[in-house]
């Protein structure tokens, strides 16, 4: 009796094993002659929540249009980058994947050039170079773009008597002080969800643009060729540390999570956030009447003007060794259709990354993008000017700087060492 049970169990284990094998083997078949597409592809994205759902919905529609195909959308959320790194290291990539700002630096060896795609000439020009390889081949389809400025709670600013736009960093500092005093410390001038670590880097990364790259006399060249004087980073981080010392951040800066930022913003307990337009969507889920505003980043130098940050947000590329390139291209073309781009962008109040014939309504941001239409856009600092892999250090050391564990000099030294190590490893 016992033996029989054992053998049944063993057989069952084997069956699962065999089924697993065939399950993974049966996927790849493409009809190369091509009228009707056939086969199946996998699509990996770092999108979560509503955006992930929309990608799934659009993929379902695509499958309906092409009855012979199946597609699987995988959205691992916060683990996306880790999963992708492990997949890259074992050359086991999905057919289509998101590149979240790292198309050229991190993923370039895995991406298929997309120059011959019908939408290749409609890409937003400010970042087209950043999503192309060194020979100028286009690598990804950017569906939306961040046009990042300073997002604020309009009601809070009005209540505290702050007038926008804040043109210089001094205006900005004065505004922070005013919010703090006018609200008796009840309102956090800026809310950062340091419990998640990455938002701490966000303020450094965003302010680094006006500090180092927008002025006439800027450091773009030096940053790229490795001659940047990191002492400048010391002054810069001391300035931000000054904001911390003066109490311009939320009290729970090291423990708050992203959702807490959204909550504080929605309930009028925070004036500024550093997350771009996405925070507004999240805040509206808590308080539909939240009144958000947007302005460009203030300038650091007298002769300089305000600036926007600009980069692709959700962008998809095709694995160059994929066995389903035709299918993958068809999916990208489908996603690039005007109404689909519109649907995706409007769910997060972001501008489209490619020009289409269908206008996109970016909600609360519309009036501000119009008002500041003449303001220049610059690429996102760490993506364009720092080697791939410095982000984590930037966030961790920022926390240590605020808590007083390290000095601003040490921060700069760490940044410099890591910068040199990564530049060297990159060559």
């Amino acid at each position: 009796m016992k033996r029989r049970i054992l053998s049944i169990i063993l057989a069952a284990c084997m069956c699962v094993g065999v089924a697993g094998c065939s399950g993974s083997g049966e996927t790849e078949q493409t009809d190369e002659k091509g009228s009707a597409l056939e086969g199946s592809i996998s699509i990996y994205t770092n999108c979560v929540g509503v955006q992930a759902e929309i990608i799934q919905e659009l993929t379902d529609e695509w499958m309906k249009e092409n009855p012979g195909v199946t597609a699987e959308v995988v959205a691992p959320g916060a683990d996306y980058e880790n999963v992708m790194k492990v997949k890259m290291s074992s050359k086991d990539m999905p057919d289509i994947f998101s590149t979240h700002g790292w198309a050229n630096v991190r993923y370039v060896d895995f991406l298929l050039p997309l120059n011959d795609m019908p939408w290749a000439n409609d890409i937003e020009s400010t970042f087209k170079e950043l999503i192309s390889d060194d020979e100028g081949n286009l690598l990804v389809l950017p569906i939306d773009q961040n046009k990042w400025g300073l997002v604020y709670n309009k009601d809070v600013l009005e209540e505290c008597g702050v007038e926008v736009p804040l043109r210089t960093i001094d205006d900005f500092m004065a505004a922070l002080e005013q919010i703090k005093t006018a609200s008796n410390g009840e309102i956090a001038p800026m809310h950062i969800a340091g419990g998640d670590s990455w938002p701490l880097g966000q303020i450094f990364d965003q302010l680094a643009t006006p500090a180092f790259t927008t002025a006439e006399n800027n450091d773009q060249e030096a940053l790229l060729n490795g001659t940047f004087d990191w002492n400048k980073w010391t002054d810069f981080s001391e300035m931000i540390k000054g904001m911390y010392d003066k109490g311009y951040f939320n009290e729970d800066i090291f423990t708050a999570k992203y959702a807490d930022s959204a909550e504080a913003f929605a309930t009028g307990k925070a004036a500024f956030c550093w997350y771009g337009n996405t925070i507004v969507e999240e805040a509206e889920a808590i308080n539909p009447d939240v009144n958000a505003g947007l302005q460009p980043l203030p300038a650091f130098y007298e002769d300089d003007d305000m600036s926007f940050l600009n980069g692709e947000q959700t962008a998809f590329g095709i694995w160059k060794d994929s066995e389903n390139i035709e299918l993958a291209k068809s999916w990208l073309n489908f996603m690039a259709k005007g109404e689909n781009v519109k649907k995706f962008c409007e769910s997060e109040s972001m501008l489209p990354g490619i020009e289409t014939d269908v206008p996109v309504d970016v909600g609360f941001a519309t009036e501000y993008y119009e008002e500041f239409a003449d303001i220049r856009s610059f690429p996102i600092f760490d993506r364009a000017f720092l080697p791939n892999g410095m982000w984590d250090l930037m966030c961790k050391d920022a926390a240590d700087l605020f808590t007083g564990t390290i000095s601003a000099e040490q921060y700069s030294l760490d940044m410099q060492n890591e910068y040199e190590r990564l530049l060297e490893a990159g060559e």
Partner: protein
Amino acid sequence: MKIQPKALLPCIPGFERGMLMRLKKMLNSKGIVNIMYIPVILLFVSFIIYPLIKGIGISMTNWNGYSDASTYIGLENYRKMFADRNFFLIIKNTLIYGIGSAVLENVVGLLYAVLLDKKSKAVGFARTAIYLPVIVAPLIMGYIWYFMFEPIGGAVNDILIAMGLESVDLLTKGTTTVWIITFINSYQYVGIAMMIYLAGLQTIPADYQEAAKIDGASSFQNFVYVKIPLLLPSITVNVVTNLIGSLKLFDIIVAMTNGGPGYSTQSLSTMMYQLYFGKQDAGYAAAMGIFMFCSIAVISVAVLLWFRKREVDA
């Protein structure tokens, strides 16, 4: 109809009568049972030992964790590790997580076991209640305690405020926070230690305790001189396994502080994870992993041998 396998044997080319004898002998030799662990060995070699050796190889390169290119750099990563400004803080934290949890789990677990070494409905309920946290995923347990300790809207601060005290942010207090995480890890897993001790207590023959009572021993003396020595095997198991588990502590730290603020609550395992995925310094991460493996091995073997000696003496 049944075919006798024996009848078929002569059909095999090259078959001789001697072979059958040898086969039979082999099947009946004492060593034959050893084949029963071969599947386990195969799994270990392919899924643990081979990857571990590869890990040693990676630790001597400057691989970034995903590209094809990497250069052999010898022991550079190990040198870098010992020169790292945060390295000794991380070692200290890891030791607190490991040794602190092992001590707490065992002291409290033993107390619980002595307290609950009875049979009644209430005792059964208490045992179940103490064991229940074990079945919550450690990642989720970490989240729950994050909700408890959140400085704004956290359950612990609600109590402090209700008592008229200031709210505190207990998740950003450096070493204190490390102890809090240690405490929570112990809190979650004390149930396993308790169960092992309860089982150990049940194996103590009743006449030993009777004899001690007749000799006039108080219940405390009875505990120290009769029960503890007899429980030593259980203590060894508990201490060593808790030590190994807690030195590798990962999920709870990630959920509660993610090692932060800065590096203040990092352990070797969270640091390794961040080096690998965050800083893209896979060679360094692997070096730290190998270091971690070796130190856990040394510590746990040392502790094991120490307890073994006591067991023999007892």
